[in-house]
């Protein structure tokens, strides 16, 4: 029978939070000793019926109170600063990360690679590479938890959340949904398979369906009729999407937003919310007509147009 005490630590963040954990355990042990040792000593020494000197000396009790309050406070503030610094690292995805899309739905995880590979309840990633997950939920709140990487983030319906990590050790790790999501919450589990970059490349080529995510998005773009207005020589005055992604967009109300994944998502689902300046608010909503997977495909397609130029006609 074995009693595991540490989960595998396989990301760049893991050693940092584990060090914090060990220090926390040490501080706790120290505090417990400071409480328990005198308590036990007093219990034995001052047991009723024992003849000991019980005259209470004049203690500077105010000073004592202030001292232990301040000591506690200083230790706490130190821990706070340290933990917050690591947290900001966990919450700030690096710019050079490989972006993968994740859709959570009752009760499975679907992962979309830009190369067009879809996985269910499995996530293949290369080690030594920053990976950023863009998380979306089709129904309720889920949470994407990889204990070995010490990361987790809730997946909230109606918007994107992100989570990032950099795996350090090849291996197969648990993937859990940690936010209660209904009957089969405990079955919403999977595996994270961290691989050497070379093995990962082999896996990519082997599994490649031959159609990238952006190409699937392009097909969808035509099937849903988006291209009717946003492409070619349409009679409708609609914004062109070439070169759009990542650029600032002036809105009709005077604000300026950056055309990121969230903005594109919002424009498809609630087009009236943030209408770009100079265009009539005529686009219909696609709320209920596209799934989260399809939104990812369309976004991937629009992203792929970031470097394209407009053919035929003015923007």
């Amino acid at each position, binding site marked *: 029978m074995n*009693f595991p*005490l*540490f*989960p595998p630590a396989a990301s760049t963040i893991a050693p940092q*939070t584990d060090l*914090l*954990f060990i220090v926390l355990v040490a501080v*706790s042990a120290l*505090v*417990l000793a400071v*409480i*328990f040792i*005198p*308590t036990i000593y*007093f*219990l034995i020494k*001052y047991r*009723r019926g024992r*003849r000991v*000197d*019980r*005259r*209470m000396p004049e203690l500077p009790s105010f000073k004592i*109170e202030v001292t232990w*309050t301040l000591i*506690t*406070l200083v230790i*706490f503030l130190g*821990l*706070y600063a*340290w*933990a*917050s*610094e*690591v*947290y900001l690292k*966990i919450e700030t995805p690096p710019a050079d990360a490989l972006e993968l899309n994740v859709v959570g739905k009752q009760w499975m995880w679907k992962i979309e690679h830009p190369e067009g590979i879809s996985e269910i309840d499995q996530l293949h990633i290369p080690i030594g590479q920053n990976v950023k997950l863009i998380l979306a939920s089709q*129904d*309720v*709140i889920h949470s994407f*938890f990889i*204990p070995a990487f*010490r990361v987790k983030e*809730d997946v909230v*319906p*109606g*918007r994107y959340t992100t989570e990032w990590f950099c795996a350090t050790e090849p291996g197969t790790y*648990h993937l859990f949904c*940690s*936010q*209660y999501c*209904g*009957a*089969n*919450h*405990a*079955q919403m*589990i999977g595996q994270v398979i961290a691989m050497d970059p070379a093995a990962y490349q082999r896996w990519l080529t082997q599994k490649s369906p031959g159609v990238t995510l952006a190409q699937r998005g392009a097909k969808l773009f035509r099937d849903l009729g988006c291209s009717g207005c946003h492409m070619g020589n349409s009679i409708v005055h609609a914004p062109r999407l070439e070169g759009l992604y990542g650029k600032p967009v002036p809105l009709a109300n005077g604000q300026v937003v950056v055309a990121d994944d969230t903005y594109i998502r919002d424009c498809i689902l609630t087009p009236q*919310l943030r209408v770009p300046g100079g265009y009539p608010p005529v686009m219909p909503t696609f709320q*209920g007509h596209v799934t989260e997977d399809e939104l990812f495909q369309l976004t991937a397609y629009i992203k792929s147009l970031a470097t394209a130029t407009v053919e035929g006609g003015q923007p």
Partner: protein
Amino acid sequence: MNALQEKLAVEIPAEDYLHCEHGLKSWLLTKDHKRIGLLYLFSILFFFALAAFAAAMMRAELLTPKGDLLIPTDYNKMFTMHGVLMVWFFLIPSIPGVLGNFILPLMLGARDLAFPRLNLLSWYLFIIGGFMALHAIVIGGVDTGWTFYTPYSTTYSNTHVVEMAAGVFVAGFSSILTGLNFIITIHKMRAPGLTWFRLPLFVWSMYSTSLILVLATPVLAMTLTLMAVERIWHVGIFNPALGGDPVLFQHLFWFYSHPAVYIMILPGMGVASEIVTCFSRKKIFGYEFVAFSSIAIALLGFLVWGHHMFVSSMSAYAGAVFSLMSFLVAVPSAIKVFNWTMTLYKGSISLDTPMIYLLGFIALFAIGGLTGIFLACLAEDVHLHDTYFVIAHFHYIMVGGMVTTFMAGLHYWWPKITGRMYPEKLGQLAALILFGGFNLTFFPQYILGFLGMPRRYHAYPPEFQIYNVLSTAGASILAIGYLMPAFYLVWSLRNGKRAGPNPWGATGLEWKTSSPPPKHNFHETPVVTEDAYNYPPLID
């Protein structure tokens, strides 16, 4: 109290509150705070038994990694039932409803609470709410967890969410009225000479608790209303399809539910101060610090709710603020623990049953509080959030803290409530069993959580099994620790030796009247001339 009165009081008082009236009606329509306290005692024990049954089912299921005892939905209904009943129908009313009701007016030297009829109404609201919740469970149960997170609760769950929320809503008004009653009573009904800084610390802690009950519970009521209306109407403000934000629900919910944790632990801290002083025959060390730390917890406790939401997609900056506040709120709790320890110094310590429970409490609360620091650490919480670490932490606070002090207080004031003593040796044994069983149940869950086992899982990977087996074994021992008092306390009602007005030789006005006390508590309004815990100086 002069010698003659002392002698009179030892004899069985003919007119005590238990015997002055008879019949069911005299109980169900009573306005006597002591009888209402007993009504609460019976009702919360009933809900505790049901919730404990649900816990037993869960622990049995978790013996094996596969989900083989219950189907997933039933498991989910079990933990929801356990959470809802334990939180709202046992923990929150436990010390305030039972011991607060019974002892607070006695401690203040008052004839009753300020609003006795309102007090009875509180109990009825509690019972109505409780039966609404039970009804929801009987007709099919609820599977949202006690947290009712949207959009699962509003749109996806097909169980009796609205009925359950309505029960909690009604019980919430019971809490509000109890808190209101206590606050006004403490302000307006103190005996002559009983100034604020002569009050027993239990009164300070009840005051802080009541502040939270009064000011946080209405927000819960509104949150549940919004959730229920959204579920019925199919339109609402938490629905992402309309632009709603499910995270707003979490803000509103935890604005109540985090301070609710302090509703559960503050009364326990009050009981602790009473017992530590009584059984070491000493003034509390640093009275003002212990008193104000209760108020500080009530004030700061409202600023920390976001630590339940560090990975909820809340802004990282808001997270940083909530984390800082969470560290700060731990300071007053630490102060209390240090002061209790210092009170033992140079005392005359006697290890009677309440004191054993209480020492157990200090240990468990210290561990629970320190592991709370782990969860307040932003980076660490990312890993530990929603795992068994959290389960272990809050059970150390709520069961190790609140339930242990409830047992301590029940034993401490049992002679006052019933006029009888319980068998001391059995009491001590039960307290030790409880302590051991508790640690065996919940300590392994810290490790489980750190290893990554998520909460609310009815099935789990096999490497987690060993700790689950330990935990279930501990739960069986814990059950014995809870069942023993049920037997010997009932036995003592008829067979216990008569207690007399002050069996512990304690200070405090509640011990200056007969046991059980007369209907209006005191034959003569007492006058207070000294500080709390003014035990005679100890020489050797």
